[in-house]
Each structure stands twice: as C-alpha cells, then as structure tokens.
C-alpha cells in the first residue's frame, strides 16, 4: 500500500515537473519569438557577425575563406576573406610583383571595411586613389575587427613583414587605448616595451564551438534578438575586461595627467600606446617600409566629429606620418551627407571611406612618392 502511494506520489511529481518544463520551454520560446518580432518591427538591430579565429602567433585573425553578410537597417553587405585571412577577393603572393609597391593596412573594423562592400572599403578606395595618382600599388588589408594597436603590431611582426610592404599604415581610433590595456600583450618597464603575454584570443574557443553548430550560425546571421543580446554581452564583457586591466595597471596619461580610471570609456593614450606606435614604426623602418598612422575621427552627428589624435601627445603628432582627415571631414560635413552609418555600428559609409582614402592617398604621395613608385609624368 505504502509502495503504491509513494509510486503514485512520484508519478504525480514527475507529471507536474513535466508540465512545468513544457510550459516553461513553450513560454520561453514564445517570449523569444515575441522579442524577435518586436525588434524587427520597432528596433531593428545591426547584424554584424564577426568570424575570427586564433592565429598561429597567438592572437585573432579572420577565418580564411569565410564569407558572410552584414545587415543593418541602412545597408546590406557581403564580406569575403581570402585564404590568407585578408579581406580581399584574391590571394597575394609573398613576393612582390616588380614595379608594384605594397601598402599594408593594420586596423580594426574601420580599416577592414565593416558595413561596406569590398569595393567601397577604405583599402580598395585607397588602392584606386593611389593608382589614379599614377602610383602602381596593391593594398593588403591585414585589419581584423576588434584589434587594438598591440594586436596590429603583433600582426605586423608575425605576418605583415613577410609580404615586404613599402608602406605600413596603422589605424588609430579612440577605442585603441582600452583595447591595448585589455589585450595585455605588452607592457612598459622603466620606459621599455616588453612582451607581456603571448596570447590574446578572447572568446575564440567558445566561438569555434558555437560556429560548428549550423543552427547557431543561422541564428547569429539572421536573428535580431541574438544580435541585440550579443551586443549587450560584448559591451559588458569589454567593460569588465577594461576594469580588470585598469585595476592591474592604472596608468597616467602623458597629456592630461589624469589616471585612465577617470575616463574608463575613452581614456587618453598612455605611454604604452605611444610606445606601441613607436615600436611599430621601428619594425616598419627595419623592414624598409615607411610608417604612417591614420586617424579615424569619432562621429557625434552629421556635422560634428572629433579626432582620435586628440588622445595622443602633441610631440608624436608633430611627425608628418600622422594623417588626420578631421579638417576634410569637417569641411565636407553637411546635414544631408552621411559619412558614417547611423543605425549600425557607426562605421564609415562608402562616401566616408572614399573621403578618407583620398586624404590618405594625397598625403602618401606627398610623403612617400618614391616608395610608392609614383610617376606623375607617365
């Protein structure tokens, strides 16, 4: 009798648990569906997946051969990565073709050309602009979304120099100081730049596991709910990593003399950032390449931008190798002209990329016509 009672009780409990589970799963599914429809109708998200993997040299690289779409309320583009992990529709030989100079770009999603088709990207536009100025060049785009100066430097050392570039261009954006802190690849000891860690591949393992699941890739490339959740989670993790890095190494800005802790979102460049840029210049020069840094201005509204170079010390900017398009952008600014996308991740529009490329091309021809084999008389 007692056995019967307890088995009835157990089956009742099991039935109840099953009901609750089914109700919970159905409820959750319905809520997620509701949220997806809500977002599509009222707050469409920018779906900007990032396909990166661990490079053999310990940092991130684009997944070779990857092809994916980026969809925002304003644009829809395809991204293709070549078999060398560069954004391009062709492969490049390690050996240079005779008579053609090489420009190597190192940056994050701005240089990589997020939210822009290949032919609208900065790299492509720069190549076209230089060729239009009779400089026979090919532009190799080593940019990877999420990179800071430290990762750019490591990519230059480990991969970039093997392609013998004549010109090396680093991107400088206001996110770089925080990225460099988070990466923790280098640190400064008594003014000397030292390698601190060999690897920085945040969330790559998780990404690899998830990307192996077809349903996940479908969701990540199509779901607005997923895009919103990922964006919030990544902001949260970035902030947590930055906070962690700040606790590890509170640094003092050379310009403002305030600690980075005062402005965790947009810290001024630290001596570490300056040392990374200077070292990148040394590496470039040691490999017979000229070194340039290009400013990516921050967008406030259609007529208001601020230069990311404001974070760098004045003495560094005195060099002609630091190129800022800020005055050109401000001149071109108008309420009717979009230089940045406004409903995605604020990357440059084709117009913005073209303007930046023209500015950089003009400056390069002025500064490095010989390395670029420019021949205005041809």
């Amino acid at each position, binding site marked *: 009798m007692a056995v019967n009672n307890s088995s009835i009780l157990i089956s009742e409990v099991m039935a109840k648990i099953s*009901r609750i589970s089914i109700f919970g799963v159905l409820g959750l599914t319905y*809520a997620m569906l*509701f*949220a997806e429809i*809500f*977002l599509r109708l*009222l*707050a469409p998200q920018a779906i900007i997946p990032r396909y990166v993997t661990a490079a053999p040299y310990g940092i991130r690289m684009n997944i070779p051969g990857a092809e994916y779409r980026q969809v925002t309320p304003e644009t829809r583009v395809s991204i293709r990565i070549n078999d060398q992990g560069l954004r391009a529709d062709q492969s490049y030989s390690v050996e240079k073709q005779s008579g053609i100079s090489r420009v190597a770009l190192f940056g994050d999603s701005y240089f990589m050309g997020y939210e822009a088709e290949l032919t609208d990207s900065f790299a492509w536009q720069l190549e076209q602009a230089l060729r239009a100025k009779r400089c026979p060049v090919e532009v190799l785009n080593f940019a990877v979304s999420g990179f800071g100066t430290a990762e750019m430097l490591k990519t230059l050392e480990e991969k970039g120099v093997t392609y013998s570039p004549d010109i090396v261009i680093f991107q400088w954006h206001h996110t770089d100081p925080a990225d460099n802190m988070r990466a923790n690849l280098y640190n400064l000891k008594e003014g000397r730049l030292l390698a601190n860690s060999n690897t920085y591949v945040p969330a790559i393992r998780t990404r690899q596991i998830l990307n192996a699941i077809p349903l996940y890739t479908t969701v990540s490339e199509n779901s607005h709910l997923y895009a*919103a959740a990922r964006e919030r989670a990544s902001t949260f993790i970035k902030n947590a990593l930055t906070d962690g890095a700040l606790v590890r190494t509170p640094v003092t800005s050379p310009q403002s003399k305030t600690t980075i802790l005062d402005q965790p979102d947009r810290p001024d460049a630290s001596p570490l950032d300056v040392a990374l840029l200077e070292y990148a210049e040394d590496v470039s020069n040691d490999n017979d390449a000229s070194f340039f840094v290009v400013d990516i201005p921050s967008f406030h509204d259609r007529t208001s931008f601020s230069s990311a170079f404001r974070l760098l010390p004045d003495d560094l900017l005195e060099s002609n190798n630091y190129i800022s398009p800020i005055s050109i952008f401000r001149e071109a600014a108008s309420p009717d002209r979009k230089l940045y996308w406004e409903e995605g991740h604020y990357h440059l529009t084709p117009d913005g990329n073209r303007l930046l490329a023209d500015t950089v091309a003009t400056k390069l021809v002025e500064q490095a016509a010989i390395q670029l084999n420019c021949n205005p008389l041809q």
Partner: protein
Amino acid sequence: MLFNSGIFFLFFGIFFCLYWMLRQRLHWQNSLILAGSYLFYGWWDERFLILIALSTACDFICGLGAAGPRYKLKHIQKAAGLLLGITLIATVPTFSASWIYLTGILLLLPAAYLLFKTLDKLSGPKRRKAYLVTSIILNLGLLGIFKYFGFFTESFIDAFATLGLAVNEPLIQIILPVGISFYTFQTLSYTIDIYRKDMPPTERLIDFAAYVAFFPQLVAGPIERARNLLPQFERQREWDADKTTSGALLFTWGLFKKIVIADNIAPIANAAFASPAETEPVLMFIGIIAFAFQIYCDFSGYSDMARGLARMIGFDLMLNFNLPYLSRTPSEFWRRWHISLSTWLRDYLYVPLGGNRKSKLLTYRNLCLTMLLGGLWHGAAWTFIAWGAFHGFILAVYRFFSIDSWISRCQGLSVKTVSINLSAWLVMTILTLIGWTFFRAATIGDAFDAITVAGIAFASGAVFTELGKLPEVGELLFYIWPLLLVQTIQAMTGRLEFLPALIKPVPQGSISFRQFAGLNALLFLVCSIFFLSADGGQQFIYFDF
C-alpha cells in the same frame, strides 16, 4: 541608487528575500526596512544620512511633545542614540574630512536636550504648541539652508548689483540633499497631525524612522501622511503573491514610462529649450509638448515604481497621478497631478490660511500664495515661482468666473456638453503647456521667448502645415503611443491599477484572451525596457526638488 540602475536591482533582490524571510518578526522587518532605506539613501552621499536622522530624531520627540503627555527619558535616549549612531556611521569612513559633522552633532545633542527640558516645563497647550513650532522651525530651517540658501543669497546679490552695490558671493556652497523636500514635508505633517489630534504619536522609533526613510518613496514621493503609512509599519504584513505580481507590474510600467518614454523624448525638449529665441517655431511647439510628456512620464513613472515596490513588500502608497492631462480646469488638474503634494498644500497651507472660508479676496490670495509656495517647493529658482504664480493666477481666474462649477454641471453626451468639455480640455491643455514652459525654461526670459516662438508657430499656421514633416513628431509619437493607449483604456474603464488578474492563470491551465493580451502587453513592456531604453540612464527630474 536609482531605481533604473543595476545596483538597485541587486539591492532590492537581496532585500526582498531577506524581508519575506523575516515575515513572522515585524520588528526585524521594520529594522530591515530602516537599514535598507539608509543604505539606499546613503548611496548618494553618506552625509545626507545625518540630516534625515536629525529630522527623524527631532520629530520623534516633537511628535510625543505635541501630543500632550510628557515623554520619558528613554525616548530622548533612543532619539539621541539614533542620531549619534547614524552620524558615526556616516562620518567614520571619511573621518578626516567629515569630523566636523560629528562635532556638530555632539554639540547639538546637549543643546537639544536642554531645549526639550525647557519646553517640557511649559504647561499643556503651550507645551504642545512649542513642540510643533520647534518641528516647523527645524524642518523649514533645514529646507531653507539646504535648498534655498544659495537661491536667496544669489537673488540678494543680483538685487544689490542692480542698485550698483557689489556684494561678495558667500564662501560656502551647499549641496542639495536628494529628497529633502519630500521627507521634511512628511515629518512636518506627522507633528502637525499629532498637534491637531488627527493621530496619536508613535513611541517606536524604529517604525517612525523607517516611515520617514521608507526607500520606495523617500527621494521623490508620494509624500505619504503618517496617518496612512505609519500604521502599516505597526501591522503584520502577509506575503501575497497577487500583490507582489501587481506591484511588479506597476514597477515595470513605471520603469517603462521613465526609461523608454521620458528619457527618449528628453532630447527633443532639451534641443528646443536650449535656446528658445533661436529655435524654429514648430520645433519649439513640439519641444514644449515633449517636455509635458517627459515630466509626466518621469515623475509619474517614479511614483508608479515607488508604489509598485511598496506593494511588493506589503505596503499601500497613495495614488499620486490620476490621468492629469485629461483635466478640464486648473482645480481638476491639481486633483489629478502630484496628488500627495497638492493635498499636502491644501491641508497644511491653504486651509490654515483660511481657505475659501473668508472673503473672496482672501480666497484668491490664499490660492495664489499656496501655489506660489508650491512652485517654490519645486526648486529654488524664479522659473518655479513663476510657474506656481501662473497656476495660482489661473485657479483664481477660474474661481472668479465660476468656470469650475459651470463645467462640472456639463454632464452627458449631448453635442453641447461634449463640445464644452472638449473646449475646456483644450484650453486647460494649452494653459498646462504654458505652465510647463516656465517650469522647464532656464530663465523667465527664456520662458517668454519660448511661448512667443511657439505662439508664432500657431499664428503663422506652421503648426498645421509643417508638423507632419518633422522627424521629431514621428519620434515623439513612436515613444508615447503605448502611454496614450494605456491611458485611454484607463480613462474608459476607470481602472488605474495594474491588477494581477491579468496574469493569474485560470484553474484549468488555459488562459483567457484577456490574460493572453495582458501577457503580451507585459512582454511588450519588458522588450521595450531592454531594447528601446535611452542610452545612459538619466536622473529623475524630481530628484532635484
């Protein structure tokens, strides 16, 4: 600690669990409310705690004194213990910078003891009155120093400057403690009610201190009367899932109003009021309307959140907003807007001044004076005084022409009554918008500029021709349509509360269409809060008051 911050959710989650674990122990529950409230308030600035403890300790004694019978030494000891204990907690962590506050309190305690001893020697009615006056002086004194000192000194300096006399600015800059206007009015009403014999004093300091500092409504109301809220601290509170659900819904609705509507439309108002003389007329007009919605959603959102939180822990706070923008007359507006303040001003200012019991002229004076002081309560600025004076003026005009009683007689659905009611509503809406212009503008000059510019939009007909072309109009409508929908339903059904029946499952395990609609509405609110909330949470407007 803002209601719309992550830290508050963490705080309330822990508090909620502990609170209901102690449900069999009322005294412990009240102590937890007090500790939680002081933590909540001290999060802004721990020095604020000294002020609230001072106001609490003083009114605890004054309440007992104003009741008639002599209080005991233990009451003084308790009050002094609370004040000293809180001062120590507030000053010890930063002792080198804040020892002066501790010294001040240590000097104040014997002086207060001597004062109370002296008052205690007075005979019955005189003694009661003396305690009442002490409470009024202390509370209004705190308000005067911390809220109005800067305003009055600046005004005097400006006045002297216009006469060609240069006066140096005062050396001290006093910060405005959050919520001081709200809790001083609460403690004042407690002592006044006891003096009027409307309620007995409490001898339980913890209960009284928890009432004064009750965190759901501490910093922006509703301004609860002690006779409504204090007895709730003395009763056992039972866990009620329906009440908790209803409270959570009300909180969610309030949060939605604040972070989705108010914060998102704030930029439209801010842009218009940044420089009214240079703003496009139609944009100015939209900016004023946006501000009307912003302040309503900001303040009523806070009130809803406060009431929702209180309900989740078994308390009932008074309704503070009752569809105010449906008002047809100024007096109706003040019966619907910030009800806890307007009734406070009525009971403790307008009526003692004589109300409408004396001559007509005195009634107008009382109306204007009450509203003027009501305006000043909102903030130490001439724009708030002008706003109060404007409302006092229109109240007096409506009374002079007996418009209130005429409109209240217009009942029914005939063409004539509907037209009259609609016209009255339209006029009152325009008057309300004019009032908000004074409230929002940086200076009175800006307010007149804004009204003139918006008036041009009307006079030129631009409002009718250009309104549809402005992106700001679409943006405003995008955020306020759920509010309009909900408030239309509330007005039609007469139900303002968020009742748990909407989400309570029916016994068979199925749900009705109404419940399904309710669940979807809840999902809509939650999705909006997650995905449509404005970047960078803004402080509540009424925290400055």
